């Protein structure tokens, strides 16, 4: 164990003096992601508000068929634009998000008390059109209900008869559980940070050592190779953990500056929550350190190692992306799936749910197991002379 500790202490000292290591592990992730997160939230919120508050400008085709509808729209603050030549093309080319077309049969149908057709021309696949489309449809619906009620009253029928069911919202979600974006985004960021925090160290201590030609003399020392490799991997893990802890602290600092109101978020990361999250994610740091060290050991140089890393970073992203696309309900078996379980557990913790101890255990143990298997393989890699002497 003496050799292992010696290697660990030397690697820590050497890398603390390395600006590149400090930047990659301790600055980049902890600064970049929280700022990105807050910036994204601000942008989303302000864009959303702008769309909701902006005057709705609506080109109308066939306005002459329904003058009372036009009057209603204008009363609601809509600016009616003159009839365009080619409304479909106008929407397709994104000149306007939505156009309505009142069809020529509108007056006839209206007279007979039959549903009178109005087309809403839009492209809902464009995110930014959603707000105006919703507003136009709500206006049309409101107009329809108003007229419908009037018609019933004219015939001596209470409009209430037409609404047999009254829906009342009883909202049980706590402000925390509404923090959906955070629930999805934070685990994703932390998973990536575990890997980015480990990347530089994993490459520098293996491929870098080989490239600088200090690996061969190092291995001539009377220390078993697995101890040397394990010392290196522990250093890498410690840096990844430091990176994670700093990222969490930095999230805690920037969260109060978030536009909370719009999303109904109440996300204050208390110390207890932070520690829980750190505990959940810590085996990922070990897994990342082992996996990256294993890969980088095959590389002849730092640059070659770098070329592998672009692909590896996808590994923590995949479970997060699956979770984003399909936010499933947390179930026991999922907590035994490494990298996926962390997404679920961190989500639950942020949401303020109480998480069964067994779930923590399953997530921790399964991830740690994979991490240790990879670490054992990595630790014995330099028993192959081929890997020691391969230099570019």
């Amino acid at each position, binding site marked *: 164990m003496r*050799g292992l500790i010696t290697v660990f202490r*030397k690697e820590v*000292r*050497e890398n603390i003096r390395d600006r590149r290591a400090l930047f990659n592990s301790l600055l980049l992730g902890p600064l970049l992601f929280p700022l990105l997160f807050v910036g994204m939230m601000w942008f989303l919120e302000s864009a959303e508000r702008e769309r909701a508050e902006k005057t709705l400008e609506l080109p109308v085709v066939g306005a002459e068929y329904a003058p009372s509808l036009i009057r209603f729209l204008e009363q609601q603050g809509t600016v009616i634009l003159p009839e365009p030549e080619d409304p479909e093309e106008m929407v397709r080319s994104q000149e306007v998000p939505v156009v309505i077309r009142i069809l020529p049969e509108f007056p006839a149908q209206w007279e007979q008390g039959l549903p009178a057709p109005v087309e809403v021309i839009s492209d809902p696949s464009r995110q930014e059109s959603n707000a105006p489309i919703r507003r136009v449809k709500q206006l049309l619906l409101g107009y329809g209900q108003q007229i419908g009620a009037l018609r019933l009253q004219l015939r001596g029928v209470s409009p209430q008869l037409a609404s047999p069911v009254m829906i009342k919202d009883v909202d049980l979600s706590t402000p925390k559980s509404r923090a959906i974006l955070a629930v999805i985004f934070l685990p994703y960021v932390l998973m990536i940070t575990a890997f980015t925090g480990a990347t530089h160290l994993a490459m520098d201590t293996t491929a870098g050592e080989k490239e600088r030609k200090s*690996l061969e*003399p190092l291995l*001539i020392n009377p220390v078993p190779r697995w101890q040397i490799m394990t010392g290196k991997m522990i250093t890498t893990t410690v840096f990844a953990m430091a990176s994670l802890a700093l990222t969490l602290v930095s999230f805690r600092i920037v969260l109060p500056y978030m536009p909370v109101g719009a999303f109904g978020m109440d996300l204050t990361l208390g110390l207890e929550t932070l520690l829980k999250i750190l505990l959940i994610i810590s085996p990922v740091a070990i897994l990342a350190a082992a996996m990256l060290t294993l890969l980088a050991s095959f590389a002849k140089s730092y640059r070659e190692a770098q070329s592998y890393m672009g692909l590896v970073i996808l590994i923590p992203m995949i479970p997060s992306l699956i979770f984003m696309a399909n936010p499933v309900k947390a179930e026991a078996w999922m907590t035994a799936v490494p990298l996926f379980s962390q997404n679920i557990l961190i989500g639950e913790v942020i949401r303020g749910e109480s998480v069964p101890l067994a779930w923590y255990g399953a997530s921790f143990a399964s991830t740690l197991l994979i991490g240790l298997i990879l670490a054992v393989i990595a630790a014995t890699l330099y028993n192959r002379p081929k890997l020691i002497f391969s230099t570019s």
Partner: protein
Amino acid sequence: MIVVKNLRKSFGEVKAVNGISFEARDGEITGLLGPNGAGKTTTLRMLYSLLPPDAGEIRIDGLDPTRDAMEIKRTLGVVPDSRGLYSRLTARENISYYGQLHGMKRAAIDRRIDDLVARLDMSEFIDRRTEGFSQGQRVKVAIARAMVHEPQTVLMDEPSNGLDVMSTRALREYILGLKRGGHSVVLSTHIMQEVAALCDRIVIIARGEVAADGTAAELLARSGCSSLEDAFVKLIGTEEGLLA
């Protein structure tokens, strides 16, 4: 004391070492002389147990590198072909790291480094980070870290590679000092003058085999040449690799 018998090592089709035998006694400097690619580095790597031999026998003070690797590493001081230093550590920290890997106590390491600084004339740069060191300074640090645990047997792979005249002189002084101290020193080289100036016994290696073996005088007598260089060419039968 090193005894090597009929050592063999192949990499795929290439027979890098093809039946090498020699002895290196205590209090003597043994030179492995040969052109580039003759198998010197591979032989040394098998001696310091980084490569397992395919066949043959190695005994270093009675120990076998394939079975007593850890024990052998404790008694060996090795300056290998790669002498990478940690550029973000000072020369002292580089040397101290190896002392700690050998399990030495802090105080013993400090004492030993002071001694090596005096002997290798390193006081000027011992507490500087090794980034930007000259080749001569690098070799001195590489030697100091290999010698920090006071090994009995010393292996050096092309120690004077890339050194200027002054550094080479200092290096030779140091190696001769080791010999006077009763150490067994084995160095590989392709430089004739080095062998002539230092070595008590010369093992000429070519194409993975021992072409000749003996003192400088014996080699001259055997080849019938008047200079060691001519003797060398005659004994390995080619001038290939000599100019490198």
